[in-house]
């Protein structure tokens, strides 16, 4: 018992500490509840799958699909889907047909037609998204599922 003897807590001091402490705990709980209150309850309300048109609706080359924020590339009867969101800060890249590259209007990132980074500030390539067909033959893209570049193309 080398510790100095604890100061005897006066009755007044205890009541003071209890009042302040309990009030602080209540305030803390209220603050936590307020934080829960302002946190969205449905952050991922939308489905991540998008049903697109029939393959025939997409012309040769790149087509931008605004609803899904993706590019569909068609070569003959082969299709591929690239996310159109820049991996830097999320702007929508634009297809530069003459130079065959994706340009980001916000901070100047440039990607190849395969999504690889040509020029920063973006560090990661544009994700290749999984493309399938639904029961009606329409294209179906899974926005949250990316695939390896060598599995990018599907043949219709």
């Amino acid at each position, binding site marked *: 018992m080398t510790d100095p003897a604890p100061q005897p807590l006066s009755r007044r001091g205890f009541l003071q500490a209890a009042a302040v402490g309990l*009030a602080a705990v209540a305030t803390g709980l209220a603050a936590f*509840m307020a934080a*829960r*209150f302002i946190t969205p309850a449905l952050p991922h309300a939308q489905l991540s799958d998008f049903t697109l048109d029939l393959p025939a609706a997409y012309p040769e080359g790149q087509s931008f699909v605004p609803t899904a924020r993706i590019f569909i590339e068609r070569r003959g009867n082969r299709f591929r889907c690239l996310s159109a969101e820049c991996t830097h800060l999320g702007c929508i890249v634009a297809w530069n047909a003459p130079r065959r590259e994706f340009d980001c209007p916000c901070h100047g990132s440039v990607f190849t037609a395969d999504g690889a980074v040509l020029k920063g500030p973006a560090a990661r390539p544009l994700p290749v998204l999984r493309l399938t067909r639904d029961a009606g033959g329409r294209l179906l893209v899974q926005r949250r599922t990316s695939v390896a570049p060598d599995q990018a193309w599907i043949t219709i």
Partner: protein
Amino acid sequence: MNTITPTPDRPRSAYRNFYHHLHPLRIRRDSLRPAATFGLGLIAVSLVIIIVLTGLLLMFHYVPSTDPTAGAYASMQDLRWIVPFGRLVRAMHRWAAHFLVLVVVLHLASVFLRGAFQVPRRTNWLCGLGLLLLVLAESFTGYLLPWDQLAYWATVVASNIAGAVPLLGGWLRQVLLGGSDVSQVTLVRFYALHVFALPLLMFILLAIHLWRVRIDGGLAHRSENGVSVYPSPLGEGAAPAAGEGLRPRTPEPHPPTRLSEDSSLPTWPHLVLREAAIFLACLAVVAAAALFFDAPLGEPANPAHAPEPAKAAWYFLGLQELVSYDYGPLSRLHWPPWNSAGPVLGPEFWGGVLLPFLLFTALCAVPYLRAKPCGIGIYFALGRRWSCIIFLAALLTIAALTFVGYFLRGPNWILTWTW
């Protein structure tokens, strides 16, 4: 002229300044008695704080739009069903608002019956009446925001009462509604009024109201009776210099109080602890009420169908009673009176505009009707007994009208005896 010089201990000094703007150094023991004011002013301030905090939270979710799927009504539904504690916060906001209306009316009654509206507190009485109007206006504008049936039809009715004001009525109604009907524009206007314009005015008036309490020498006290000079702005019981008027003059930041040691207590901690207790009690009551009694949400607003019965909030039911009476020959008068082709002054004018206006004017005029203060700080002072009786009679009449409107009006506003 003295100015406040910054001290080295700046944050502490800033806090002290804030504290001392709201509180004197000492407070009369007598004023701390629960029965002195029943703490009604403090309760009202506590409720305002609760309303502001919950209102701020609600603004994170509320969308002032009439869109049925993404607008005001949908955000009410989301608060009810998916937002964590959404029901609690909304119901707390609502219950606190209801309590506030009740408490400010009781506060007014207490001040009146104690004679605390007399010199030197005449200005603060007017200030308080202004706050009463603002509280009612806040309640009224907030009532529309859920965009349900009750909200919609209460606004339709109230805007038509506003339209019955002579000369200005049509304009007033158009400005309120932003057109000729209750619509999206109305909702945005009411929202702007509810969350910004009216609160701003309210804070200005509330700041003046609280500050004037100090300027006017704290709470009204019987010791003021017979004092020929008014208490000093510097503290309760301090004698002011002649010709001071009502302007504050603080010769030094923390003027010494002249209250005697045995008749007074330091405000810290005696007053502050009571304030904390009152705030916590209000919070507990409001939160518990919100937990057990959900704020109702009716059907979505439907301009094609008035609900059955279409009742205003309880604090406007007296008014709704008044506008539903037959005013006999008065109802056949025209405006202007000499022009028989002009519009008829119906019950919405007599009951909805003129009577409330006269009542409010009378309340404003009360401090100026008697030259010499009488019975300051004394409930039902003998010298003011007639004014007290008239006041109570008026208050009871309003309460009775509210009771009739709330309990005895059935479908189609027909008088029914429900038990």
